């Protein structure tokens, strides 16, 4: 069955994968040099972020004029509004991992196609961290 929603999801993925590749975010060294503001600073990622934000900011304004997405009944948006400890602690830990490796989830997964061992090790460890944290989150008291 041809499902238009599936095709647009696939195209979204294609754009994302091409974006993190062309921008150089799949290269951890480039990301680390962006984070190294007192050293060999490579400002490229400032422009990646700025361009990404500009397109999304304007695009979302137009999209949210619609009552619903084209191929799905409703917009699925996060409902949590409160800044809480898990958010801040999680983001802090995320940043340490990003700063140690130069990899964040999207570029790391996309970089698997380049066949470097480090990408596979990183993504495997990330998957373990995700599964373990989700288990604990589901079992423990609601945060």
């Amino acid at each position, binding site marked *: 069955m041809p499902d238009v*929603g599936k095709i*647009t*999801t*696939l195209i*979204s*993925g*294609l754009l*994302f*994968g*091409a*974006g*993190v*590749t*062309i*921008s*150089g975010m*799949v290269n*951890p060294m480039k990301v680390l040099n962006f*984070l190294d503001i*007192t*050293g*060999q600073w490579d400002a*490229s990622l*400032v*422009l*990646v*972020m700025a*361009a*990404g*934000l500009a*397109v*999304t900011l304007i695009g979302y304004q137009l999209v949210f004029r619609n009552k619903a997405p*084209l191929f799905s009944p409703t917009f699925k*948006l*996060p409902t*949590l509004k409160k*800044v809480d400890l898990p*958010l*801040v602690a*999680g*983001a*802090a*830990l995320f*940043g*340490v*991992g*990003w*700063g140690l490796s130069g990899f964040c*989830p999207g570029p*790391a*997964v*996309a*970089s698997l196609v*380049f066949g*470097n061992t480090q990408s596979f090790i990183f993504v495997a*460890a*990330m998957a*373990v*961290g*995700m599964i373990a944290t989700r288990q604990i989150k589901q079992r423990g008291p609601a945060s």
Partner: protein
Amino acid sequence: MSPTEFTPLAAIVGGSLIGSSAVLLMLTNGRIAGASGIFAGLLSLEFSSEFSWRLTFIIGMLIGAFLSAQLFFDASSIAFTGGPITTVAAGLFVGIGAILGSGCTSGHGICGLSRFSVRSLTATLTFMATAITTVFITRHVWGA
């Protein structure tokens, strides 16, 4: 550590593509294009429609990375730092942090900020700060 070239054109094109991905996914399927949430959704034994769209997106990502690299990216320029233990630790931290913090660079840094989410702004400022601090410590305090 080795220097990398400032590549403004590739950065703007790449960033715009990531933004287009986020806008298209919201327009058509009403979803946030957050890589960590989409990937984490695949790490499940329950096969649902949620699983299916996420798998489609990830497959698209891999194809997009592969195809675009044929023309616009030199994959041999990819360079890593740190040994396997550092990589494992970093992967664990990123995985734990993305679930605990409900998002990553794309989900909070692009989609969340574009929705004027205070949670995403807090998360983005926090992970930028700890990432910059981590690189400062590993490169300039402990040495490379």
